[in-house]
């Protein structure tokens, strides 16, 4: 009995010492300090690396994980306000390359906030680079390597699967279709990168960026599959309503009723879950669910 009390006493002492040591050392040990994260993929990576306790603010694109939405909101990434961000007393602004406006970033830099801008690159390497940079800032290189490894594994599985699939379906990705001309994703868009990764051809490949596409052009493009974002599908009033839109029935996708609704956030965000999301999409596009995918995924 006596031994146990002394043991528990010692443990308590050790715990106290540890707490004191931590409270003395953790803030002093530079570390990342208080972080404002601007960019959905970046915020998600901070959470995945257990860095959430450093976060004091996020932007409106930081929707994942759901707990991030409880943090103070600095607004949309392109219209940051210098004073708003400063009021959160951040040491570090983790910024997507899309963050702005430039004048505000300049003001924040002048006010002594460290700004780390991370490039937006629609590829597995781009995601790995973001993870590596954030892991470095959080001083968690091990966890970073592990997380990057998981993401890479998803993309490797995708690559294996792609190597096995023979045909390349022609896919049209529509970012908008409810009001006026449908907006098709051409070259240089995240959707274009996703289609290439999924082993599909972009039916709007001759367009640059997201551009309105006419009904006739849509028929001429002859997509085997049409992808709609969840937002667009809702705005139209469901897939049935979309099939009734002029011109859709004249495309192979419309005839074979191959219009799919995709989760834009997971698919186009190029964050942690993109590899899985693209693989799922690839399976659907190639219309051969389990077999090839399982063969590729076997490990």
């Amino acid at each position, binding site marked *: 009995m006596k031994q146990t009390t002394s043991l528990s006493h010692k443990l308590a002492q050790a715990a106290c010492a540890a707490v004191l040591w931590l409270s003395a050392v953790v803030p002093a040990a530079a570390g990342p300090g208080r972080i404002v994260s601007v960019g959905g993929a970046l915020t998600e990576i901070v959470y995945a690396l257990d860095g959430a306790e450093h976060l004091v603010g996020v932007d409106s694109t930081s929707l994942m994980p759901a707990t991030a939405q409880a943090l103070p909101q600095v607004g949309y990434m392109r219209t940051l306000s210098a*004073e708003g961000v400063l009021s959160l007393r951040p040491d570090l602004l983790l910024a997507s390359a899309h963050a702005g406006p430039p004048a505000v970033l*300049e*003001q924040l830099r002048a006010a002594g906030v460290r700004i780390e801008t991370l490039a937006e690159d629609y590829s597995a390497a781009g995601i790995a680079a973001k993870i590596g940079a954030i892991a470095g800032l959080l001083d968690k290189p091990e966890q970073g390597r592990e997380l990057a490894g998981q993401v890479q594994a998803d993309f490797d599985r995708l690559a294996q699967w792609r190597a096995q699939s023979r045909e390349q379906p022609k896919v049209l990705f529509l970012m908008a279709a409810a009001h006026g001309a449908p907006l098709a994703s051409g070259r240089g868009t995240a959707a274009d990168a996703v289609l290439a990764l999924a082993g599909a051809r972009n039916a709007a490949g001759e367009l640059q960026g997201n551009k309105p596409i006419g009904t006739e052009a849509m028929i001429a493009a002859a997509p085997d599959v049409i992808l709609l974002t969840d937002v667009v599908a809702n705005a139209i009033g469901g897939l049935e309503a979309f099939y009734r839109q002029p011109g859709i029935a004249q495309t192979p996708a419309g005839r074979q009723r191959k219009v799919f609704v995709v989760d834009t956030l997971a698919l186009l965000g190029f964050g942690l879950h993109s590899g899985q999301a693209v693989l799922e999409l690839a399976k659907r596009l190639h219309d051969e669910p389990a077999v090839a995918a399982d063969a590729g995924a076997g490990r």
Partner: protein
Amino acid sequence: MTVHAVMATAGPRLRLKPALSRAGLCWLLALLLVIAALAALGSGAVVISAGQAVAIVADRLGIALPWPFGADQQAVLLAIRAPRLVLGLLVGGALAASGAAMQGLFRNPLADPALIGVSSGAALAAAAVIVLRDSLFGAVAGAFGAYLLPVAAIVGGFAVSWLVYRLADSGERLDVASLLLSGIAINALAGSATGLLVYLADDDQLRSLTFWSLGSLNGAGWDGVAIGAPFLLASLLLLPWLADALNALLLGEAEAGHLGFPVERIKTGVVALVALGVGAAVALSGVIGFIGLVVPHLLRLALGPDHRGLLPASALLGALLLICADYLARTLAAPAEIPIGIVTGLLGSPFFLWLLFRQKLMGH
């Protein structure tokens, strides 16, 4: 004197007795403006007490006051809030004074500074910079840095309003009706050219364009104030100087000429000063609606149509409204921010409708 005698019977609304004397209203507006400016300086997402704000300013003047403040508070007040306030005062004042002058020149209460093409020209130049930055402005962009957009917008605004002016100017005289028509045509042309750029833009550029067109004082610094202040101040200070001439123009151009006013030079001067003020305002803060249209209207109800009161009072009320709107834009969603054009539109449009219906009810 004759001018005012005629004006007293010139229109149904003019029969109303001014509710306040001209000087009284101007003093009241100036007082409110000072209070609002101090309140704007002392409030925002970062907490700075009134004492601290005073101490920070005094510290700059070399006086130590017993209110301690942090370096970050000092930076926010001096580098972010103060230039933003100054820009808001200048932009709001210039927009409203320009609106009053345009309504005088066109003898139409619906005239807006945008009529002479300065806003659409600035918007076109801004869109060109945002969309073509890398391909066309690569070399220039480096030299101008973050100021490429405001400088280009000022130049674009001036260029388009100069074009509108040249089209309406026959060489001997500036026909105000032609000015209106060429303004409409060139505005449509500039709008289409901007639309073409929007079509060419990628998603990122598109979002930047959208937010620019909603207007904002966000990101204003002393450098921006330094670029715009000469133009804005020229417009603010010289337009009230043309008040007598604008009063005379209300009677008609021939009549104003008989009264001894150099009519052609005055029309040119008004167009030039409006282009200066509104061009710089749009360049530095994007498109901020309704200040130029609603403020002079409101004051015409209170003061009557005499430009000697209308122009300075418009400048004061425009500045007051814009810094109040900016205060709301900064604080309603803090630490995020709402574009100020949304706030002025939301406040301005219902008020404008109320004004219209009130006129209708009064049997106009």
